[in-house]
């Protein structure tokens, strides 16, 4: 295992108007690990994740994935250079959204091919073969020619995961991947993610599923009010040290 982390974020700050959501956050993750970001609503966990692929532009701080770095605090970078930097950074990650955001006018297979063929310029035949393999991996073989609207919520989210994987990224980012699902559909999606974690993908997952995070995560970040309140291995979720973390876990694990 290399000594340099695959993902490294330093001093991320972000304010929406007067509301400072990130107050200087550091994050690093090694290749092949699963990182879970947890915390109460409004703690800034989704903003961190979206900073990693610049769907949210931090006010300052740096983000590096593999060899691509963006220094958001550096105002001297001109616009076209910045755009190139951002595109390079994005090319290292795929993203799974809370409500899948599949392209409704494209079939399942076309959803998977859009990135590899249209953006990366890969051969259609080769990319199609890979896409079919991915669909099989997420349990959706035979659904290639269906439209997203013909699938259940869980199936849609699994297509969303396959679409992110089809880019063959170094990192897959998950933004609350099961929050929009009916409870009985959550399991099938978590099973797929668990599968990815064990087969060596590098994952960063924002989630409310504490038990799932405890099982899967190599690293847990507990975020509170824009700062990382506690950080460590999955023991953070079994035996939290900080009072704030304990409170939060009590609330989510013992509802009522």
């Amino acid at each position, binding site marked *: 295992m290399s000594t340099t982390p695959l993902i490294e974020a330093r001093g991320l700050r972000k304010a929406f108007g007067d509301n400072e959501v990130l107050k200087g956050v550091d994050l690093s993750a090694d290749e092949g690990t699963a990182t879970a970001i947890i915390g109460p609503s409004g703690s800034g966990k989704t903003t961190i994740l979206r900073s990693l692929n610049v769907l949210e532009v931090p006010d300052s701080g740096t983000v590096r994935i593999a060899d691509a770095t963006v220094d958001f605090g550096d105002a001297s970078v001109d616009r076209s250079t910045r755009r190139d930097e951002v595109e390079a950074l*994005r090319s290292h*990650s*795929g*993203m799974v*959204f809370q409500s899948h955001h599949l*392209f409704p*006018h494209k*079939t399942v297979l076309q959803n998977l091919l859009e*990135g590899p063929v249209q953006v990366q310029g890969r051969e259609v035949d080769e990319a199609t073969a890979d896409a079919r393999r991915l669909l099989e991996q997420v349990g959706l073989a035979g659904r290639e020619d269906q439209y997203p609207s*013909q699938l259940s919520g869980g199936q849609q989210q699994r297509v969303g995961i396959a679409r992110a994987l089809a880019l063959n990224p170094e990192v897959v980012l998950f933004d609350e991947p099961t929050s929009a699902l009916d409870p009985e559909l959550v399991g099938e999606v978590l099973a797929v993610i668990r599968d990815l974690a064990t087969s060596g993908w590098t994952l960063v997952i924002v989630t409310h599923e504490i038990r799932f995070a405890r099982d899967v995560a190599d690293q847990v970040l507990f975020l509170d009010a824009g700062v990382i309140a506690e950080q460590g291995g999955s023991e953070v979720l079994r035996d939290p040290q900080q009072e704030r973390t304990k409170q939060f876990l009590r609330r989510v694990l013992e509802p009522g």
Partner: protein
Amino acid sequence: MQQSRRALALVVLSWLVATLALSGGAASAESAGTPAEARTVRVGTEGTYPPFTFHDPDTDELTGFDIEVIRAVADEAGWDLEFVEAPFDSIFPALDAGRVDVIANQITINPEREARYLFSAPYTYSRGVIVTAAGNDDVTTLDDLDGLVAAENETSNWAQVARDAGAEIRAVDQFAQAAELLVQGRVDVVVNDNIAVLDYLASSGSDEIQIVGEAGEEVSRQALTFRQDDPELQQEADDALARLADDGTLADISEDYFGADVTVEDAAEVTDVKGSDTRSTAEVVRGAAWPMLRGLLVYTLPLTAASFAIGLVLALLTALARMSSNRLVQLPARVYISAIRGTPLLVQLFIAFYGLGQIGLTIPPVPAAILALSLNVGGYAAEVIRGSILSVPRGQYEAATTIGMRYPQLMRRIVLPQAARIAVPPLSNTLLSLIKDTSLASVILVPELLRQAVNAASPSADFMPLYLFAALYYWVVCFLVSQAQGPLEKRLGRYAA
């Protein structure tokens, strides 16, 4: 921002290309006007003023006394003729703007016109008459017109005569309309040429209007009209007319149309005109069916298709510019949309045709109509398209961004296909409006469907059946278009659950 600037550049570029293409066409039309071996002379005429200038009911060919005279003149002078048909009140502006070189339309010589134009030697000597609805015995001379309402071509000599007599003028395009207004009791009186009135009476067989007296003592003189900067053409016409008078050609043409020679000063009075169109209403409608269909196929539909296609491209670019976060890109789009939606299409057509012509950008009628109509569609459809694009969820942009797409690709492959489906019903409305709006192009000399109906109505005065027939044509086209809307929506929305 980068992208939106590129979108603006595209808008500007396509504008330039369109403008250059159109003005290039104009330039070549212009060069046809320079003197050469066989000069092409463009003749402005109504085509709706029988028996002087009208369409032969049987062949639909442009014909009439004035048309035969100018053809004879052209033979003598060695001109190639090109006829440009327009409503009377558009003919002088067309001459001013250099769109026609001569007017052959029973233009009466009067001092006001002599101050502005050149006239050939007169080729008609005629009398004006006063016309009222049958049974109206109150009017017999011009003195009785004071305070009455008269229907006339606004810019005609007869309008001036009626105005001078104290009448209030209601503007119409052609004599047949004026006669119809008399019959319907909407105006009191019409002053016009004796021959035109006799022709109308013979064609329509109407006994609902009557000639009640002469409009003054003077014989009026009609002549070919030229621009003041074109004395050469006038001289050629005069030479030709003199020869035609000498060899009896003019007299023959006049005898042929009026049974009398009206081309000399002490002309015999015309008392009997055979009528330019004495057919039954059914025959008139049957005869007009093909010219109207041709107007539909050759002008209305191509005009619609071209204007819609160009308009949609313009609308898309405008919508994208309008959504830009760059104010310098956004502002022109806002101004354009506001200007188009805040002004009448008729005014836009006039500006594209007469306005631009006056500042040196002379565009032929059909391109000018396409220019105005496509700009109009662009302004309206831009807001439709913008609304459709905005209704595509934010997440679609994010998903496309995270798979690495840049703005143009994201728009083309992800957003616009989804927006298209949303835009189809409102854009269908735009298209249906456009089909019908092309009828306005008749005012800038495009001989489209409605113009053909107007042409047919002028000698026959069968307004109701002809306009109903024109309406039927428009309705059929609109019906077919709206029938296509359902399948198109279905196709674009085949992915929806």
